């Protein structure tokens, strides 16, 4: 698909400056995002190319303004919804629960 992931040849992003000694994970949640994606992928309900496609299908504006592991979580959510593991309501409910916990 002609998504925001296909950046080759685009102008305006500036030079690529890889960080020295960049950590594997920048935040604790990224570690979880990686682990959950790996664990959910192991059951064989989808494959690597389906995962890539799910990440690419993110709305282009959102894709370009979010981080690598946010793309991963978006892709995973999409696959979990598509394959019937979760419903939109369950994800919303869980987000509300976490937000409530953080306030208290």
């Amino acid at each position, binding site marked *: *698909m*002609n998504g925001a992931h*296909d950046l*080759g*040849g685009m102008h305006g992003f500036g030079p690529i400056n890889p960080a020295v000694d960049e950590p594997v994970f920048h935040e604790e949640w990224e570690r979880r995002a990686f682990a959950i994606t*790996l*664990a959910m992928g*192991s*059951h*064989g*309900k*989808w*494959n*690597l*190319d*389906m995962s*890539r*496609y799910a990440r*690419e299908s993110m709305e282009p504006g959102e894709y370009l303004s979010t981080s690598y592991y946010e793309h991963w979580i978006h892709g995973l959510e999409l696959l979990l919804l598509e394959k019937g593991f979760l419903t939109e309501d369950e994800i919303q409910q869980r987000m509300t629960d976490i937000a409530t916990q953080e306030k208290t």
Partner: protein
Amino acid sequence: MSVLTADRVQEVLRKGGSARLDEKVLAKFKPGDQVRARNINPIGHTRLPRYARDKHGVIDCDHGVFVFPDAHAATGEKTGQHLYSVCFSAAALWGEDATRPDDLVHIDLFESYLLADE
């Protein structure tokens, strides 16, 4: 349904996964062949980048037979195709006034992305 348990994570990650298929498939191209990337715009997954579409290049090498990702993403079916390293000049990709027109770009492309160049 298979489950990835904590004790197996190290082993699974170390082993990794290859998309190479042990299949005999006749290759349409050989190193040195002139090709043109097709102009396709599928709504599904593809590994043919936009900037290479409709551009002329040369087959540099044949990596062998690999799972075709476009079909694998759509249906889960593992169809084998030859994967080539295709060499494009910066001039072919970005035009004669490219900053460095003689630079070469190698892109790994599946056989069905390519047409024989007359």
